[in-house]
């Protein structure tokens, strides 16, 4: 670990206690979405479109309804038709109309797997048989499955009733849902003065988040029109809001209980099955549980956007960047919003660029509606920028770290969108990379015959959001503290949040017991996403712990009949400042405190935590005959602000790197010309396993965020950004071949080698 600022003497923060939910998870006691069982529960199943693009002419559900054991059948006619109202300003934003249409198609299906109807039956087999009896008459339309097809002049249009926003002008009959532009400085002058200008365009295939647990949705619609939902989600309040919108209910009529979550990476923010189970429950007056198969997940849940990104960078004779341009075209999937603003914010984030221009296009295509995937859109743009930077270094003979340090973004650097950075730690990451054993080691340039080795390096960024979080604390009679939160725990956040409360209270992390509860039991808490949870919910825990101490002091003052100013608290003990004999442990004050139990609560609505940067170094070995690439050494360096629980920070860094390596080398939605995903199983969608990867080395750099009392920055997202360009740059280093499309799979490598010969 590299520690840049002064290290405070924390007692809990920076330690590695066993996570509070660990035993439940490893013994199988933890309850996931599919585990819920309710009395009289029915099984839901959905009918999905076999076509990527088609009009629904009619749906005949009569045969399904007649089947024994079928309790109800629904179509979109059972859902309210929503207007095109824009919701929110976050990872939960979007159009209400599109939210509803993505749950179940009304008039058109826009991707293979789009839901058109659903049934509730006594068991799964009956439900599946009933689905087969639903007859849908389609008028099949030509699909568009990538940005080139969708942006072509004669393209088949997905949303005839939708107007795209092209630089503020409303445009009909377009698949470009939005075109935004950002400009800073005089880019023409910058390129004109440049000594060298390099331009590259990269092509990223659609990829899936690849979480282990498929989606589920269980619901009860009761006699008072109150809906209870149990689901696997990254945000119970986001589900509550979305379900209430789709069903046109007041939010207070919807209660969402988040089950344990088997991975999400952004993909478990949208809703899919929850409103369907709710409507089926309303029709049957029984609980309904609906589950997805793995193929359903691939076919119909949010992947990370594919797309094309062109980047042009000009430098002067001293190696200083003068100008940069980016043209970003990303697939939104069936409904708008492909994170193009995030892409624009990230594309030149690692550099101090005096003049730049960015054009970004949000393009709808006949694929499942895209969802956030770990630093949404940042890996796509980093592939382009970091490839161009590597090419500049190769042409000019610059050391890739020295070039990055020469142009590094620091506090006060103006970002692509205009605002200046506050304290960030990219420079410290680059210096740590330069000082690392990995970078200082020699690459074995003479491996076995037929193999070539190469090394690549790349940087990446994510901006780390804040938003709303709430925490309640109560001091139990045994002196232990119950912590209630609304943040779904994906990566060990129960521990990292409890540890922040424990640090304030001066007690062991184990003495704070965290629970993630339903939407009726805690204040609004935004999604576990955007790398916000340890930062924002941790901040709420920090504030709640301070309020708890105030309560402890007030109750002690009452008990001792002295002024509270005469009392101090530290490390779980409350004491009189005047009388050293007068003191109580937490257990003693918690046992029948005067005036009622000792409780506290706090909520926050935070601004961004300050950006998180990562630098990755990849060594790989390529078999020239087969094109197979093996990662032989990999190091992830990251500014983590302050590592609350270092093991889980390292886990995030390694997990992000592993996912990025899969994106670089193997993963893709392999599509037929008619828009059907042909590899919708884990046998064919090739994610890396432990056998494919070496140990990912981690170097945590700690440059504290100015916005958090412990300096926390989000850590979950930056590590997926550098792997694709780092590996692309390593392949170029090994073979002298610049691959510009993902995945850089064996067939692409062998084809490129043949072309080179």
């Amino acid at each position: 670990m590299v520690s840049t600022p002064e290290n405070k003497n924390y007692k809990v923060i920076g330690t590695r206690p066993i996570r509070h939910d660990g035993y439940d998870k490893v013994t199988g006691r933890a309850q996931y979405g599919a585990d819920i069982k309710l009395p009289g529960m029915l099984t839901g199943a959905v009918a999905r479109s076999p076509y990527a693009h088609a009009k629904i002419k009619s749906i005949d559900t009569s045969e399904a309804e007649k089947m024994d054991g079928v309790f109800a059948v629904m179509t979109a006619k059972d859902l309210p038709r929503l207007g095109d109202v824009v919701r929110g300003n976050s990872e939960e934003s979007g159009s209400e109309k599109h939210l509803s249409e993505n749950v179940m198609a009304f008039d058109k299906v826009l991707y293979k797997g789009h839901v058109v109807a659903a049934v509730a039956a006594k068991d799964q087999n009956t439900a599946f048989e009933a689905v087969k009896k639903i007859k849908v008459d389609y008028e099949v339309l030509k699909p568009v499955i990538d940005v080139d097809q969708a942006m072509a002049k004669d393209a088949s249009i997905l949303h005839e009733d939708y107007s795209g926003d092209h630089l503020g002008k409303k445009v009909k009959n377009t698949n470009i849902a939005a075109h935004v532009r950002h400009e800073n400085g005089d880019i023409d002058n910058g390129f004109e003065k440049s000594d060298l200008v390099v331009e590259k365009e990269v092509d990223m295939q659609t990829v899936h988040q690849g979480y282990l647990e498929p989606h589920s949705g269980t619901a009860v619609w009761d006699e008072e029109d109150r809906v209870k939902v149990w689901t696997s989600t990254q945000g119970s309040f986001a589900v509550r809001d979305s379900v209430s919108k789709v069903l046109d209910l007041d939010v207070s009529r919807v209660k969402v209980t988040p089950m344990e979550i088997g991975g999400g990476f952004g993909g478990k923010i949208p809703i899919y099955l929850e409103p369907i189970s709710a409507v089926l429950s309303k029709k049957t007056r029984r609980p309904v549980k609906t589950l997805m198969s793995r193929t359903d997940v691939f076919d119909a849940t949010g992947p990370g956007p594919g797309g094309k990104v062109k980047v042009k960078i000009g430098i002067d004779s001293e190696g200083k960047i003068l100008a940069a341009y980016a043209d970003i075209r990303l697939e939104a999937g069936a409904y708008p919003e492909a994170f193009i603003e995030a892409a624009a914010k990230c594309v030149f984030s690692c550099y101090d660029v005096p003049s730049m221009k960015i054009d970004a296009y949000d393009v709808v295509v006949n694929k499942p509606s895209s969802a956030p995937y770990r630093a949404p859109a940042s890996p796509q743009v980093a592939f382009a920028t970091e490839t161009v930077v590597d090419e500049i270094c190769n042409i000019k003979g610059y050391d890739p770290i020295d070039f990055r340090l020469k142009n590094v973004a620091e506090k006060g650097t103006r970002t692509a969108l205009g605002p200046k950075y506050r304290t960030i730690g990219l420079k410290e990451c680059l210096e740590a990379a330069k000082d690392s054993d990995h970078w200082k080691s020699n690459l074995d340039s003479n491996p076995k015959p037929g193999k070539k080795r190469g090394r690549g390096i790349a940087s990446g960024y994510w901006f780390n959001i804040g938003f709303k979080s709430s925490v309640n604390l109560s001091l139990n009679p045994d002196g232990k503290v119950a912590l209630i939160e609304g943040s779904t725990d994906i990566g060990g956040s129960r521990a990292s949040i409890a540890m922040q409360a424990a640090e304030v209270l001066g007690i062991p992390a184990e003495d704070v017991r965290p629970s993630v509860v339903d939407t009726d039991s805690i204040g609004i808490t935004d999604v576990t996403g955007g790398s916000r949870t340890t930062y924002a919910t941790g901040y709420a825990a920090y504030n709640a712990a301070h309020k708890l101490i105030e309560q402890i002091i007030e109750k002690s003052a009452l008990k001792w009949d002295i002024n509270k100013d005469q009392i101090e608290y530290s490390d779980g003990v409350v004491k009189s400042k005047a009388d050293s004999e007068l003191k109580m442990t937490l257990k003693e004050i918690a046992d029948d405190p005067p005036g009622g139990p000792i409780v506290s609560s706090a909520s926050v609505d935070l601004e961004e935590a300050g950006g998180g940067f990562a630098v990755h170094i990849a060594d790989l070995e390529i078999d020239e005959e087969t094109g197979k690439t093996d990662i032989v050494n990999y190091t992830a360096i990251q500014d983590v602000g302050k590592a609350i629980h270092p093991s889980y920070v390292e886990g995030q860094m390694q997990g992000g790197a592993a996912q990025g390596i899969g994106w670089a080398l193997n993963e893709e939605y392999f599509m037929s010309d008619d828009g059907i995903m042909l590899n919708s199983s884990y046998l064919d969608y090739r994610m890396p396993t432990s056998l494919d990867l070496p140990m990912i080395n981690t170097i945590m750099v700690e440059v504290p965020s100015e916005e958090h009392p412990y300096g926390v920055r989000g850590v979950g997202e930056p590590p997926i950004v550098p792997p694709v360009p780092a590996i692309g740059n390593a392949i170029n280093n090994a073979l002298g071949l610049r691959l510009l499309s993902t995945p850089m799979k064996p067939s692409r490598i062998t084809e490129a080698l043949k072309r080179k010969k």
Partner: protein
Amino acid sequence: MIKIFLPYKIRENLDVPTEIEAYGSNLRNLIDHIEDMYPGVKEYLVDEGKLRPGMSAVIDGKTTRLGLIHKLDNVAEIHFLPSIAGGSK
């Protein structure tokens, strides 16, 4: 006076310079002042008494969570930007 940077589409459609100056005790007053100078801007920025969905205000590097009631003491610059969007659509 506070330096104000508006999104490209507003600048282009309403012929507003890249950088302008305005004042206000809070964001609401500041937007009213911009509207006085460049009629039409407010409609892009405000909807039903709040910052328009899809629009954010970055005040000296921090995206405000308070919206129009955000007080503007000792503020140097404000960037109005399209908010980062995309998620549960």
